[in-house]
């Protein structure tokens, strides 16, 4: 695939991510923060998000496996995940977190377990998609091209 085709593919892919609600305006803000002094800023922040989210998902799984569930603790973790996903523009993850917090407030175990499953699913989707996008970007850069905005 030549450079122009790659660039076009990237733009189309990125647009679809916004269209399908995986990403929102905040992700654009993130891209705008990147500059020549910090050319890897977006990848760095998103990588932090991946690490942090995986940690939180593990904590959530453990907390919800307990005999006597500490809903405050569960809520604290979801609050963190909601915050991070909102900060990078991972809209679908954020939305599940909002529902998740409501179930925590109601101390609804089933609701929480369902949300945990959903949030894991949405997280893994957005992770795969962002990784694909970064790969495309890397291909473009390696071919000597620039990333279209």
């Amino acid at each position: 695939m030549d450079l122009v085709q790659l660039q076009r593919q990237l733009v189309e892919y990125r647009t679809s991510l916004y269209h399908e609600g995986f990403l929102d305006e905040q992700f654009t803000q993130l891209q705008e923060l990147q500059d020549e002094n910090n050319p890897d800023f977006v990848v760095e922040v998103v990588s932090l998000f991946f690490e942090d989210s995986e940690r939180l998902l593990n904590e959530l799984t453990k907390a919800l496996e307990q005999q006597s569930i500490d809903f405050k603790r569960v809520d604290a973790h979801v609050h963190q995940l909601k915050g991070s996903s909102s900060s990078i523009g991972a809209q679908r993850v954020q939305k599940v977190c909002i529902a998740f917090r409501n179930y925590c407030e109601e101390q609804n175990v089933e609701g929480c377990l369902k949300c945990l499953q959903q949030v894991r699913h949405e997280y893994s989707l957005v992770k795969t998609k962002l990784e694909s996008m970064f790969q495309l970007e890397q291909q473009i850069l390696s071919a000597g091209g620039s990333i279209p905005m």
Partner: protein
Amino acid sequence: MTDTFEEKRKDSVGREGTTIGLFFIRLLLNMGGGCGGDSSEEVAVDLGYEPHVLAVDDNLIDRKLVEKLLKNSSCKVTTAENALRALDYLGLGNDTPEGTASKVNLIITDYCMPGMTGYELLKKIKESSVLKEVPVVIMSSENIPTRINECLEEGAKMFMLKPLKQSDVKQLKWNFMKCRD
């Protein structure tokens, strides 16, 4: 600071050379574009003044973001992951060694933090004779009017909704980070 500005103008008027010319052009451009900042602050910015901001947030991603936003606005940034660390840095902590308190021009803190909240941190700062004049800005992902009022009443200069944008930080700089001698 106004004196310095006037002196610079007097010095530059008689001189030739691109450096002075550029300085003047930047001044004029800045004066046109500013929203509320006074011209002495602009001169200070051009001459390399970097306000020092302490950013407090327990979320790693948010810390990284706020740091970048502030750096993009030519601020020197120190981050703290909780209120206790922040107090320590400011010289109000139980573990602060003598004479190591750091001077900051603005404190921006998240509201929801484990242990001590941003609100409690705000109170501690306002209770301190040394630090009460430092502007404090609270940020939160939740838009709760009672929370906002509570913070403003306690002396927070502003309450901002997360995630922060570059325009929010620009506004902070103009409003609260005037240059000091």
